[in-house]
């Protein structure tokens, strides 16, 4: 049901960025893009997240240090098929984890929400993007939520960027 917003409504909402400027993420590595810690009775609404692969650089063999460039058709063909660290999970993903443990690989940890993932392919059009759509989910269990980006390839550094937002209702 629609209603008017009050000053209390406005004061109780905090929009927090989940943003990563263009970054070279080495093969089989992760980084924390953003972290939000909530307590009872706060909630975290996750709606917008976009992941973009803007380039790739080989890290082994004949592709060492070579950028994957678009051909005459605008397609980027990986000279050597990207190897997947974890099969079936795409080239790169953004996941949200409660209580992320930096001593354990992301794939071994429980996701709070399905990942935003760029599907596996040997030929891609740059920028290759993935987004989670606009259906929000609300996380209400108290804890620390981290948005973690992972390069799931074994042989390419990926040039990536993330744009996203979460809304904390501080009640």
């Amino acid at each position, binding site marked *: 049901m629609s209603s008017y917003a009050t000053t209390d409504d406005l004061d109780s909402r905090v*929009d927090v960025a989940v943003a990563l400027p263009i970054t070279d993420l080495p093969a089989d590595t992760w980084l*924390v893009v953003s972290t939000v810690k909530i307590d009872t009775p706060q909630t975290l609404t996750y709606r917008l997240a976009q992941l973009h692969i803007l380039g790739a650089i080989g890290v082994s063999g004949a592709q060492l240090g070579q950028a994957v460039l678009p051909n005459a058709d605008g397609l980027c063909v990986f000279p050597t098929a990207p190897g997947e660290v974890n099969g079936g999970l795409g080239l790169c993903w953004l996941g949200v984890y409660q209580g992320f443990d*930096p001593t354990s690989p992301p794939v071994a940890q429980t996701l709070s929400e399905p990942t935003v993932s760029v599907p596996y392919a040997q030929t891609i059009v740059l920028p290759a993007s993935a987004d989670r759509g606009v259906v929000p989910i609300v996380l209400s269990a108290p804890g620390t939520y*981290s948005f973690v980006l992972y390069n799931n390839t074994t042989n390419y550094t990926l040039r990536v960027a993330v744009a996203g*937002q979460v809304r904390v209702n*501080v009640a």
Partner: protein
Amino acid sequence: MSLSVPSFVTREQYDRTLDVPISLPQTLLDPGLSIVVNAFDIPDGATMQIRWLCLHFVRASTTSIPTKINNGRQGVSAGLYGDSGLYTNELPGSAMAGVSTDFPNTAVAMPVSFPFAAKSPGTYALVVQNNFSCRVEVVVTASLRITLAT
């Protein structure tokens, strides 16, 4: 939280309210290094409030207990500094407001527990600093609200 009586938000109020996101994704900080995450000016008549400040100390480059450069300070901290002279590549003075931690975990300041508002015009900067003698990896996620004058 507002201390005034709740009322409906007018379009004019909404237009004057700017939420500024601040995001430092996981970044490696050398020993003793401070970096400016963001710097901004508050114009005359405007107010600025820290709405959210979350410092995530992800990990350190050593498995042993790291030593501090300055024992009077926390190991890793993020804070708001006023006046441009206060932030440099060296450890700055005391923050006007901030969070800190000695151990890999998350420190957070939020409006309910930690209201802070600046009304003086000038330049402000959000600075994160490493007071350990080893390298650390940190994430800073913050949100500021600037309310412009009518």
